[in-house]
């Protein structure tokens, strides 16, 4: 383990304002977020994250390791976290599916870690080189059992850096896996990136035990909070299990009260802090009756559509979610208050539109612009939906994209 050294990271990146790919920017963001362990397995279109970490991480004193598959990659990351590291892995659809068990284990053991998913077109091996946003609800619900976690969605190379960096602090603050859901378009896109200043690169450290070894409760915390964390090798007795456990960390699998208090606390430490975790971008227009709710790369298509529509005198508002989960329900509802219709453009056959519709509960009609096959949504496709109406959320799978 090595302490975060801003100057060393900047020197290692070595370029003042790189014209870099989103994947590479995720790696830069990790280094600037204090990442000191990377465990991964190469997969298109996420391989450049692993390549960059393999090249740069040793020079900042960290450890990259290529594991035999994605199951082992996340297992290595979780183990590394328990030895005091700030770890990350990166993958795409097929690997993300394999990681679901590990994600649940990280939730149950409250292990801070960052997982980048550069989404590609699925299901299964699908279209490896083509982007998609088809893993959004898997990110939320892919692992079994009741759980909450933090899901972020960058729309640009700059946001790949900024949100990955931020993910490390959130992982430590909330003791949770944080998922950075980029996609093959943003991952392989190049833009110039501004490296954040030393002051911007605040590192939120893991909270070590405030009591002696005899009194430490590795899973004891007030409702809605996360416990202090003693890593392996620090002199504290720490038992880590995916089984339902007591505050001491010992398995207790037939005690309803213990299960309820553990799992509810774990969920509420995220859901109860939704306001602090909410990160959105508003672009409102007075008098608009139609609004777009977007995330990730489709947010750029939506921004293009807003520019075109306003140029033609059509009023439209736009809300882009950078934090997708916990879902910023209050903010979405307020956005929709004065709207008749809300359109959700996404590169899947309809995922986040269901979450938006559930939040709005009929207060505005929710429609979708869906597109699969590899091409990102064009501004024209969104403009058409705004003017002529989008597809209903309850979909019939037509012949179109």
């Amino acid at each position, binding site marked *: 383990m090595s302490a975060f050294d801003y100057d060393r990271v900047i020197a290692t990146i070595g370029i003042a*304002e790189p*014209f870099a790919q989103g994947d590479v920017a995720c790696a830069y963001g990790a280094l600037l977020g204090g990442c000191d362990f990377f465990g991964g397995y190469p997969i*298109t279109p996420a391989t450049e994250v692993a390549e960059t970490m393999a090249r740069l991480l040793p020079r900042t004193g960290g450890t990259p390791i290529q594991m035999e598959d994605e199951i082992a990659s996340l297992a290595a990351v979780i183990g590394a976290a328990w030895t005091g590291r700030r770890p990350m892995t990166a993958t795409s659809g097929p690997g993300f599916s394999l990681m679901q068990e590990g994600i649940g284990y990280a939730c149950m053991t409250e292990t801070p870690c960052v997982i980048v998913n550069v989404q590609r077109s699925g299901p299964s091996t699908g279209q*490896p*080189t083509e982007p998609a946003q088809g893993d959004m609800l898997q990110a939320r619900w892919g692992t079994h059992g009741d759980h909450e976690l933090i899901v972020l969605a960058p729309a640009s190379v700059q946001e790949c850096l900024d949100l990955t960096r931020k993910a490390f602090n959130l992982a430590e603050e909330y003791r949770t896996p944080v998922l950075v859901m980029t996609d093959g*378009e943003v991952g*392989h*896109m*190049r*833009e*110039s990136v501004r490296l954040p200043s030393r002051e911007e690169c605040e590192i939120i450290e893991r909270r070590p035990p405030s009591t002696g070894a005899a009194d430490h409760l590795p899973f004891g915390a007030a409702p809605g909070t996360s416990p202090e964390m003693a890593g392996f090798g620090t002199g504290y007795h720490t038992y880590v299990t995916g089984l339902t456990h007591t505050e001491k960390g010992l398995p207790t699998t037939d005690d309803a009260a213990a299960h309820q208090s553990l799992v509810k606390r774990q969920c509420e430490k995220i859901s109860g802090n939704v306001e602090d975790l909410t990160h959105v971008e508003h672009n409102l227009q007075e008098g608009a009756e139609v609004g777009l709710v977007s995330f990730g*790369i489709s947010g*750029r*298509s939506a*921004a*293009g559509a807003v*520019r075109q529509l306003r140029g033609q005198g059509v009023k439209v508002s736009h809300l882009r979610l950078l934090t997708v989960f916990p879902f910023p329900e209050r903010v979405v509802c307020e956005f929709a208050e004065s709207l008749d219709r809300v359109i959700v453009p996404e590169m899947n056959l309809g995922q986040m539109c269901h979450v938006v519709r559930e939040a709005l509960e009929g207060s505005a009609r929710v429609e979708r612009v869906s597109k699969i096959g*590899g091409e*990102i949504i*064009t*501004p*024209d496709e969104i403009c058409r939906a705004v003017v002529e109406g989008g597809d209903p959320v309850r979909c019939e799978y037509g012949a179109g994209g």
Partner: protein
Amino acid sequence: MRQEIRICGFGGQGIILAGVILGESATRAGLRAVQTQSYGPESRGGAARAEVIISDGEIDYPRVTKADIIVALSQPSFDKYAGDLAEGGVVIVDADLVDAEGARSQPFQSVAEEVGYKIVTNIVMLGYLGAFMDLVPADVFEATVLDNVPKGTEDLNRRALEAGRALFAKGGPA
């Protein structure tokens, strides 16, 4: 100002590298740029496409909608990707490889062979394209090229770039 450029050819021709250099050179000249790419799973062959948006303001949608410039270095990629040209847009093709009516047809590949190797066809094309677009100072453009090619090939690439510029200066068939 928003310039939309598409460069296409077959995998292995350095199409994406050409897009990267074009985009990066624009950012070094103080403009904004986004470079995107599409290609199949094969590392050689197949159709490759790089797109570059250059602007003096923020770039939202990162892809070409109506191309101001389309460059094609292979016939199949021209047939597939030369469709959505903006009004007044320009098509630039390799005279040796693409048959396209009304295009600026230039012998990039044979000039590259004269310079030394067919592999620098993309850099010859960039020399021509950079001079044609005239958005980035020549020295900035050259520095970007040299920073993006393998060490030890700088001289070859510098000559390729020069040869491409010379093609533009000469005019040739429009």
